């Protein structure tokens, strides 16, 4: 990888690290701010711990981003964020399908409108981190082409 890519990688890791730390603190606070919510029951403390750890791991990969042992830290931190975000999305999917009704004769599945409404905001912190964290795929493929 050339110098520019390495610089870009260090920047990416630094920004992601700070962002993950910030969102991790939000998970600890566990409140709702407009389109962002960290209200999610008892697991919220674990999500906070994971995001904070991911933040620290990202930051530890900032220097010498050309070394595979450094890049891999950013990869691992990204995977940690993907897991949390994927579970947030999976919770949305699981909640969107059944109607929740209990009496005989009522529909079993959620109506189309209810189904779609389940995917509206607010979203969990990790879901906001998901999109920028995908940039790591660029570095992985760059490495593969280079080698």
């Amino acid at each position, binding site marked *: 990888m050339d110098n520019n890519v390495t610089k870009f990688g260090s920047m990416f890791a630094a920004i992601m690290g700070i962002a993950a730390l910030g969102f991790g603190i939000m998970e600890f606070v566990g409140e709702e701010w407009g389109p962002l919510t960290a209200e999610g*029951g*008892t697991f919220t403390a674990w999500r906070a711990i994971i995001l904070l750890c991911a933040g*620290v791991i990202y930051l530890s990969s900032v220097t010498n981003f050309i070394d*595979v042992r450094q890049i*891999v*830290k950013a990869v691992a931190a990204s995977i940690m964020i993907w*897991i949390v975000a994927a579970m947030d999305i999976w919770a949305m999917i*699981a909640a969107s399908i059944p109607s929740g009704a209990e009496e*005989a004769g009522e529909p*079993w599945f959620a109506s189309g409108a209810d189904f779609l409404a389940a995917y509206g905001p607010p979203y969990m912190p990790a879901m906001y981190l998901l999109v920028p964290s995908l940039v790591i795929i660029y570095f992985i493929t760059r490495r593969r082409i280079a080698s």
Partner: protein
Amino acid sequence: MWEVKVERALTADERWDLVDKITKEVVKVGAYKPGLRDALASLTVNPWTGIPFAIAVLYGFWTFFGEFAGLFTDGFFVRIFGTHWIPWLSGALEGLPDWLFTILVGDRAVFAEDFVGDPCFAAGGVLTTGLFMPFAVVLWAVIALFLVLAILEDTGYLPRLAVLVDTVLHKIGLHGFAIVPTLVSLGCNVPGVTATRLLETRKQRFMMIALLGVFVPCGAQIGMMEELIPGLIGWVFLTLAIGYLGFGWVLNKIWPGESPEILMDVPPYRAPQWSNILRKTWSRTRHFLMVAVPFVLLGCAIVMVLYATGAMDTIASGLEGFLAAVFGVPADATASLVVGFLRKDLAIGLLPIDAMTNYQVFISVILLTIYFPCLATFAMLLRELNWKEILATLGFLIVTIFVFGGILHLIGLAGGWY
């Protein structure tokens, strides 16, 4: 030239010469670029990075499991059984004699107009709760667990997790792979007991099953705890973990037998093959249906016979005063502790939480968790262990309850928390 020499022992120079020739052929410098997979393999077994990563993976494991089981059980099957099957069946079989109705359908009181509660759990008959437990609750938990387990296995993560926790588990005579039954049991103890087959010797399996049955709460219990005592969950888990490791250590010392090392295949990380994962999940689920379900049905039948003959009431009243004295829980709570003897998933919900202090709630929840394996788990225990081991498990259970419960009681008294 050394080639013509025939004696066996070479001189040092000749040996170095031979070493040079061999290395020239087999060692190539600059041929490898260190790979990402390799780096990831190191990162995930190094405690500093491996433990946070493991926390993320385990968070995913349980969240996926919880949502999946919730989708099927709460989303559909509670309604199928609670609104359709059980009311229909109780109507259709109403004419049966009392004893047969009790065994097949359950306690008639559950079907009275003024009954408050969920008939799915409360009825207790072979065709009601007996079918509800395996097909509406445990089955979906099992599918979700096996699915995630297969993914973790096929990507190559599971053996690395085992390597990561190996050091700690060795101290109690278990192997890193003991993490698998433990993980599975946190979802559902029933497949957890099956998963102990990974362990090599009878001693390891027995220890694992005893520890699982006593110290590992299942997903249903954890769900109940989350709902009723969210503030105390952390303490409950910490206490259980201490019990798991502590009693494991003791058990390892006193139970005869060996705990040899199990050698794991630690393959490189790779993308999983979905067809293989689905096949694995299916074959394990099928196996579970064939071996566990008949035992659950049998267990329900036995319990209902005990109810129908009144034996259960005798047991309950005999235990009540005793429990209050030993553990310092109020008399009101003992009813729930007795129910917990057979259905611990329900029991936490029956605790009179408002009437108790935090410490009493805490100690009651711990006791309910370590009390007795749930019916389905107990059925699996009968299947997997021999008589000597079953008696030992029960003995272990009783000792644990008194020692552990007694210690907590004393700590509470000393701290003045009652």
